[in-house]
């Protein structure tokens, strides 16, 4: 488990898989990600409210897009990253991967809730309803329950290794929901409109609207990395209790 694996080129990828090397690194990187997120968010909000014009159909109500879409993207992306680390944790039995999965879940749940909440507040004035049971909305709600289920499962099992393994399996099983959310508006007819931004076609948004939204999406990305790094440091401290290296940390002796 702890033996180093040398990949081609001699880069020791597993060096940072050890909590004692990752802990200080995460501590150093975290503030950078946090302040980048704050800056990007400020720029995104400025463009979103003062540069991007009024929408031709929705008027000012469309400005909810600057949080709704980034939050919805993050809610799905964080789950995919969680599932990835869950898979790595199951296969390689690395402690840090499982810690990363746990560290990501609350932020993912937060973004899922934000996507649903802002979606309801956006749906009421535009569609005429807070909520409908269409495929897009329902599958996103299932994602929220997957996050909650993961956190409850981890909290409910006392033995850390068993909790990790059960959580990892839930994370991997739940990953089928992600393509369902993403493609729901294509596969079935839904009240929710199709994607304005996709990899396969030109965005159907005015350039300034799009740039505001992308800046906010980047901010959400940086924020998620910052919170995950912060949380994984706490998890390392909680789980490595009694390890020798912890006693030499400045925060242990202060």
């Amino acid at each position, binding site marked *: 488990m702890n033996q180093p694996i040398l990949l081609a080129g001699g880069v020791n990828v597993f060096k940072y898989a050890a909590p004692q090397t990752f802990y200080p690194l995460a501590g150093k990187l975290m503030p950078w990600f946090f302040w980048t997120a704050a800056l990007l968010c400020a720029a995104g909000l400025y463009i979103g409210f003062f540069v991007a*014009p*009024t*929408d*031709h*159909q*929705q008027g000012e*109500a*469309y400005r909810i*897009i600057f949080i709704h879409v980034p939050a919805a993207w993050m809610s799905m992306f964080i789950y995919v990253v969680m599932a990835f680390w869950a*898979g790595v944790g*199951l*296969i*390689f*039995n690395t402690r840090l991967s499982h810690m990363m999965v746990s560290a990501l879940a609350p932020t993912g749940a937060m973004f899922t809730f934000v996507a649903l909440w802002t979606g309801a507040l956006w749906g009421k*004035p*535009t*569609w*005429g*309803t807070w909520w*409908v*049971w*269409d*495929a897009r909305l329902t599958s996103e709600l299932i994602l929220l329950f997957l996050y909650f289920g993961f956190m409850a499962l981890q909290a409910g099992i006392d033995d850390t290794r068993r909790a990790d393994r059960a959580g990892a399996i839930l994370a*991997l*099983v739940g*990953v*089928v929901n992600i393509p*369902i959310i993403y493609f729901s*508006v*294509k*596969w*079935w*007819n*839904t*009240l929710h*409109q*199709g*994607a*304005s931004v996709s990899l396969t076609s030109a965005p*159907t*948004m*005015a350039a300034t*609207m799009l740039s505001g939204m992308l800046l906010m999406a980047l901010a959400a990305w940086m924020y998620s990395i910052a919170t995950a790094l912060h949380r994984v440091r706490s998890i390392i401290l909680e789980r490595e209790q009694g390890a020798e290296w912890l006693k030499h940390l400045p925060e242990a002796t202060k």
Partner: protein
Amino acid sequence: MKTRHKRLAMVAAGLCALGIAAALVLSAFQKNLVFFFTPSQVAANEAPQGRSFRIGGLVAPGSVQRQPDGVTVNFVVTDTVQNIPVAYRGVLPDLFREGKGVVAQGNLGADGRFTASEVLAKHDENYMPPEAAEALAKAHAGKPPGAATVVVPAATTEKR
């Protein structure tokens, strides 16, 4: 190394099985996942009989008529192939416009008229300032206003 490969294979196999299971379940429930029926599907008797369901399509341009009682609105839902006349009493959403998407819940009468109890607007995914929308509409002169940005709901364009 051996156990690692074994676990990798197990996780991969598990994910594959899961994906297949999900695909099977989804295709089995395909009909129930449909949020609304298009006028063409209704014409082909694919919509449920004798109970409330949703129809979706575009509000036919020029079809919206407000009745003298002030609360009843008549309009036609179209998918450019079939049309369904709809009667609705109540408040329409802000984005209910002629030539734009709409989803209505209600019952289909024997006379082919749909009585809606709820009308929702289905807007498209295009975001632009009003000036750009006008410019686009002018560029597509000859087509009815709004047609430039109209996206016909997916199910109307593909055969099921």
